[in-house]
């Protein structure tokens, strides 16, 4: 009896499998039917309105899941005031997975209408593969300078494919209470900076400089790219590397790594295993004095810390020298070339070039600064401090981002590795310079002469 039951069950299963195989071709038809049904439904719902007024929904792909609330509560409602018929949905992915997820979605044709653009090559590749639409003729693109657009255009500069949204500025954030307590002042030169660290070390139990090297990128991003522009003279040095006129073995770069190596005694105990969130917590708990930062930290720090904070730009190697800051083009928005609603998407992008959006975005996300030329009012004090350096200092972007990270070994990864190793004391600045230069020379022709 039982055997028979089992057999019938099996037969049923086999039959199901067989019928599944046969059905495979069928779904295409009902789907097409559904679509037309939907379309007729849509048009049927609003027969009185003209076709341009039809309601559409745009989906934004992004890695900024931290900003979800800002988009939903501030930016999208502001857009909808003038554009009630365009629904916008912000659908972020985890930052580390964004590139991979986006690529698969684009390949499968299921990506959103608007796509948040990483700077330089990641987006350039999407454009070259035809996934991002060119935006040269978008009204309002002339509100952005060439430097602002540089991260999202073809190498020859002829085509722009994303609307620049924001940049982040590097510098140092400090705990004002500790500075008051110890009677300290913002340092201007490297010498003052080092003696400041020494004072904090000697006179208090606070950690003078809060950073770890466990995740490696802090050493490169908040260390090397933060203080470096003062040594390699910003854009001048960055472009010289691309043209092959300068090398990482030049004194400027060795000096940068030397300055980094000098941080080691002032970092938290066991900094080799201190991760990025550890360092953030240590600082916001008030146990550390100075935090090598990017302006994107402002939001989190202000919500977590219950003390006053100040900021100073990277210290100068020599007094009286021109100062350079890393004002890095970080985020932009482009249009999926295969979107079903190109007009609505362009309308949204066009709105993003306006002063209204610039002001809204910069103030909703203090620490992300608009790249447009609009004159806007920044409410957050700390953010205003960062932004004020644009007036006094020359700006540049991270030197590994444009062109130089196209080959193998990847320059950005190499900078992470050696910068962490230099601070950990496992590599001398000269060795670091040597290894990075050799890696770059191995594939980048302008560097081979």
């Amino acid at each position: 009896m039982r055997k028979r039951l089992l057999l019938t069950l099996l037969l049923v299963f086999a039959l199901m499998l067989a019928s599944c195989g046969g059905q495979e071709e069928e779904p295409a038809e009902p789907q097409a039917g559904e679509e037309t049904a939907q379309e007729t439904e849509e048009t049927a719902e609003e027969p009185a309105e003209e076709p341009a007024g039809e309601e559409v929904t745009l989906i934004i792909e992004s890695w900024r899941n931290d900003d979800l609330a800002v988009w939903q509560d501030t930016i999208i409602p502001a857009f909808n005031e003038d554009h009630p018929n365009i629904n916008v949905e912000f659908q972020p992915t985890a930052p580390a997975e964004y590139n991979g997820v986006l690529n698969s979605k684009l390949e499968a044709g299921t990506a959103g209408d608007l796509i948040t653009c990483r700077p330089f090559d990641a987006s350039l590749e999407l454009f070259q593969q035809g996934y991002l639409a060119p935006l040269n003729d978008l009204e309002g693109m002339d509100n952005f300078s060439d430097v602002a657009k540089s991260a999202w255009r073809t190498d020859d500069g002829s085509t722009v494919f994303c609307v620049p949204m924001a940049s982040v500025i590097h510098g140092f954030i400090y705990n004002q209470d500790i500075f008051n307590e110890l009677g300290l002042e913002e340092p201007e030169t490297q010498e003052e900076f080092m003696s400041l660290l020494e004072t904090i070390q000697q006179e208090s139990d606070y950690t003078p400089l809060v950073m770890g090297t466990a995740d490696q990128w802090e050493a490169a991003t908040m260390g090397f790219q933060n203080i470096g522009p003062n040594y390699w003279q910003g854009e001048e040095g960055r472009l010289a590397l691309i043209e092959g006129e300068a090398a990482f073995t030049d004194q400027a770069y060795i000096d940068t790594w030397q300055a980094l190596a000098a941080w080691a005694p002032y970092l938290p105990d066991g900094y080799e295993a201190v991760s990025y969130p550890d360092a953030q917590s240590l600082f916001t708990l008030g146990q550390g004095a100075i935090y090598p930062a990017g302006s994107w930290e402002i939001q989190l720090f202000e919500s977590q810390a219950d003390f006053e904070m100040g900021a100073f730009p990277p210290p100068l190697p020599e007094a009286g020298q021109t100062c350079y800051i890393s004002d890095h083009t970080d985020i932009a928005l482009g249009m999926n070339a295969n979107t079903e609603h190109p007009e609505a998407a362009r309308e949204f992008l066009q709105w993003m070039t306006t002063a209204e959006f610039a002001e809204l975005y910069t103030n909703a996300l203090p620490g992300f600064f608009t790249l447009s030329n609009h004159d806007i009012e920044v409410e957050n004090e700390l953010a205003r401090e960062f932004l004020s350096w644009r007036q006094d200092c020359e700006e540049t972007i991270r030197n590994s981002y444009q062109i130089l990270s196209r080959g193998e070994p990847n320059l950005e990864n190499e900078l992470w590795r050696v910068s962490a190793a230099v601070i950990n004391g496992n590599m001398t600045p000269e060795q670091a310079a040597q290894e990075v230069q050799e890696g770059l020379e191995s594939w980048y022709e302008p560097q081979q002469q």
Partner: protein
Amino acid sequence: MQKNSIVGRRFPWHIVVFLAPAVLVYTLFMVYPLLDSLRLSFFTTTANERVFAGLQNYVKLFTNENWSWNFWNAFRNNIIFFIIHMLVQNPIGLLLASILAAKVKLHEVYRTVLFMPTVLSVVIIGFIWQLILNPLWGVAQSILELVNLGELYGPWLGRPESALITISLISVWQFVGIPMILFYTALIGIPEELVEAARVDGANGWDVFWRVKFPLILPTVGIVAILTFVGNFNAFDLIYTMKGALAGPEFSTDIMGTFFYRTFFGQQLQLGNPTMGATVAAMMFLIILIGVLIYLFLWQRRITTYEV
């Protein structure tokens, strides 16, 4: 009589029916992707098009200085990872199993507790251990200081000479339950008579274990070894959770899995390279295949299994 009837029968359709679901599902979700991945490793991408490249990717992997350094570094680290598991995880598993099999008090509770980390998510394991070992707020340092060994503490996860060993030991801690359970089931399967007979012959506990029990569980030793090998050369998640795809410091914790991930999916500014990634994956497949073949032909065929 029976033989004749089998020969006389028609084609055994019921076997096909029984095998079909498993074969279909396995082919669809395992064999086909595996073969397709191998196929991908013979292609390369130029100007957004995949073109057949023969063995070019493999030549690059072994002759290009940068690629081969990464490959051999990952391979060497993976072997260290495996050796630590073989030397620490499996002997401890055996020890725990033999203690449990001796029916100590509360052995059922211990069995469950010791197996628990194995079923926990690797993300949780990585997070907990990073907190325990954290130089700022970890308990590892305080515990060592409590017994006056504070000086022994170091930021182990951050130093190239100790990071891989530390992560290996964390992985050992997590997975020790698997060899333990396998050994345990083998040990309790040994008939009492054999042990009693040895006792009567005057063997002490040590002799009974090494001369009677251990030879009887040798097949399990082989299975545990090959499971460890396959598991270790497929490992990825713990290192990715704790050190990221760049497997720092200075690639000292980079194993085949993280090397593959970084190559295939990319990392920060490094764009993903599916064809080279498939090449690395093919090498992983080959390494595991060789290991399994060695096990099948050099171990399983030669070993004497005692019918008990």
